[in-house]
């Protein structure tokens, strides 16, 4: 569910080497996908939360992430038409717009972010992690593509801790359901040593990713951990986890951020470097993609920097200490899946946000409540209250959607953001007085 940029999608502005590098890498990935049928490479569609990228790559399979395609369509202003197309085919206006955008894109030719046709899946790897809609989404795609599905049910972590039999359950599914289907599709045998090596590379990149995310603890923060987080910090992680390229990318990114820290620079944004850090905020919930740059600018204009966010943790929660462990390859994949943010019970999510507010010295937090996403949205109003009570930090609440342009009211959202930040000012003034 995190973003990735591409040659056709840009929020423009100044770019650092990491941004250009990821652009190249992702363009290369999409080109490889478009050529996959001609080159005999097999393609697996799967989801960001609970993705098994290392396992797929250990079989030389190429991952396609439909959420990424949907949000790319949102950024390219195509999602409105795609959603309308899906609704024309009987999909309800009430349900997830990622799903409808993906179905609509398929109905209109399955043209990917680079303008090239995406290959149909050879396998749908349904990693059922933290989102009920995922199950229906791939059931719908199965009907469209008539291809095999490997179902991986990841137990929800309602109690806030992983139970041994939950790990066993996932490992057993990997052994009996997922790996045999990957073997069948790829024609290769499961190679655990190869998987271990990829997991080792993942852990290296994870160290640098966490370092970058935690650099936002500095005042001023050298990064924006939400808009920047989904634009160029987090997205590389999904498709390139377990690769040498991924390790190099995060090394470059870390060096850049180290440089910004040395120079006392704020985050790089599409409008240029953010010079003033007037507000440090924590953000809960996904962004809106159809007006991404405008949404970001609303915060930029006010000098608001997002120093930590939950959305950048849907693909894995590494700043809690998790690292892929090559010594326990399947078990570590199980633990990774279960630890993704939306697979965590509300009390655990609340505790994480509370930790972010304290550790990142945030003066406020904001919830962007997404119409499409019950997994995130249900309970957020209670989280708002309890987070305020626990931290004494005021929260703001705005509503939008992932990729449905009908549900982004710019004037209303801007007004709410400004009012909220004014309230923070008044609170600060009051405290000083």
């Amino acid at each position, binding site marked *: 569910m995190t973003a990735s940029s591409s040659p056709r999608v840009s929020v423009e502005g100044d770019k650092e080497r990491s941004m250009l590098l990821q652009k190249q890498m992702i363009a290369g990935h999409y080109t490889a996908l478009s050529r996959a049928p001609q080159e005999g490479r097999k393609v697996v569609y799967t989801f960001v939360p609970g993705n098994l990228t290392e396992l797929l790559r250990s079989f030389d399979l190429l991952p396609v992430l439909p959420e990424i395609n949907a949000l790319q369509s949102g950024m390219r202003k195509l999602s409105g038409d795609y959603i309308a197309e899906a609704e024309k085919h009987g*999909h309800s206006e009430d349900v997830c717009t990622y799903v409808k955008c993906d179905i609509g894109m398929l109905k209109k030719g399955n043209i990917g972010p680079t303008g090239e046709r995406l290959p149909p899946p050879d396998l749908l790897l349904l990693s*059922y992690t933290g989102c009920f809609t995922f199950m*229906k989404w791939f*059931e719908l795609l199965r009907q469209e593509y008539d291809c095999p599905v490997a179902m991986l049910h990841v137990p929800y972590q*309602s109690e806030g801790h992983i139970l041994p039999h939950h790990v066993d359950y996932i490992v057993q599914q990997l052994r009996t359901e997922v790996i045999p289907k990957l073997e069948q599709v790829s024609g290769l045998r499961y190679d655990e040593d190869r998987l271990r090596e990829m997991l080792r590379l993942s852990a290296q990149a994870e160290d640098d990713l966490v370092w970058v995310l935690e650099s936002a603890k500095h005042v001023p923060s050298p990064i924006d951990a939400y808009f920047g987080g989904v634009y160029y910090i987090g997205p590389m992680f999904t498709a390139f986890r377990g690769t040498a390229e991924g390790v190099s990318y995060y090394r470059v990114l870390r060096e850049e951020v180290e440089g910004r820290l040395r120079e006392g620079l704020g985050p790089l944004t599409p409008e240029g470097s953010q010079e003033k850090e007037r507000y440090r905020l924590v953000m809960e919930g996904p962004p809106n993609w159809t007006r991404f740059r405008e949404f970001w600018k609303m915060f930029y204009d006010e000098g608001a920097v997002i120093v930590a966010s939950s959305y950048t943790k849907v693909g894995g929660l590494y700043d809690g200490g998790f690292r892929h462990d090559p010594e326990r390859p399947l078990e570590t994949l199980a633990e990774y899946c279960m630890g993704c943010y939306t697979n965590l*019970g509300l009390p655990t999510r609340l505790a994480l946000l509370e930790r972010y507010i304290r550790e990142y010295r945030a003066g406020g937090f904001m919830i962007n409540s997404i119409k499409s996403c019950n*997994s995130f949205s*249900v*309970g957020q109003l*209670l989280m708002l209250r309890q987070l305020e009570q626990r931290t004494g930090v005021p929260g703001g609440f705005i509503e939008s959607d992932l990729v449905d342009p009908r549900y982004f009211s710019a004037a209303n959202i801007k007004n709410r953001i400004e009012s909220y930040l004014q309230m923070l000012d008044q609170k600060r003034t009051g405290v000083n007085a």
Partner: protein
Amino acid sequence: MSAELANLITHAQELNDDFDLTSVRAWKEAGTGRKAIGHMPIYVPRELIHAAGMLPVGIVGAGERLEIIRGDAYFQSYICHIPRSTIELALSRRLDVLDGMLFPSICDVIRNLSGMWAMLFPERYVRYVDLPQNFESQTGGVYWRRELETLRDDFGRLSGKPIEDATLRDSIAVYNENRSTIRELYRARSRQPWVYPTSEVYVLLRAGNLLAPEDHTALLREYLRLAPLETDRRDRDQSRVVLVGMFCEQPPLGLLLTLERAGCWVVDDDLLLGLRWIMGEISCAGDPLQALVEAFLTKSAETAARYLPDGQHGGALVESVRRNRAEGVIFCAPSFCDPALLEQPMLITRLDREGIPHTQFKYSEDTGQFAVTREQAGTFSDSIRLWSQA
């Protein structure tokens, strides 16, 4: 209608309308140390609660009769209605009689509601029941057994008495009897829907959320005895339809009455599906926990909240249409219900392939106006009858 039948239906209706759960309080007070465990739709293993000597209580929101004052403050406008009325019931202390609450995995709303419950009522027993979506005995079966063992231990602790295998076997038998009676009622309605109108069947079925299963079975048997004695119940020229999408948030009774008045005989539905989730007998021999596991893996109802490994969506629906000699399907789902609404296009594809007519509309548990429903259902029914005659 005979006074006896009228009293029976009124009794069930009063149970359903009583948001204070007086009947549950009365049940608890009738014995020392009795406890009650609430649960949301769709399926939880009620046998385990029963075997612990506790009363399973199905909570399905509050329909159209409860004014939502606090509940709306917890949910955005684009979330279905059942969580807001359920929270309203809880915050108004009407659910204090429950000693615990179970939230089965049906969708993200009910899932997150379990977390809200834990945050709002930290002193109470709350458990998210994550049903397996893998139906292989060595995989999903092993996992589900471990989950059931946890529930069994929890319920033993809550009730103060560990659950013995023999007791659990007895409880399984009690629920087998209950489900068998429900199936008998559904078969009777399918044969003669004018004798067993859905507006009555539903009221009696729903009382099963509140009554002890033995009492519910007795209630249904009495209805099966009394309804055919009504001499003025005659067949009318109505279309036979199957209702789909009502397995969680329940429709107002007025909506079911409207469908019947608009010319539809409901011959099958998925209302309160949890009461009959297991489609057949559960073995009363051997290891009872394993019997619950096997029944879940092999006899679970086909519904939107369940993964279908073979991908043949709509198979059970088409089979129901055929078995019940239905002439059409009405998709009637709550607004913003992810499982029902995401499943619908797949079911429609299947029905279209089979040439089965269908129509669709949405409701909310607090829907108060049925004019549009009546018009749409009436038109649908008319079109079926005209089409059939052609």
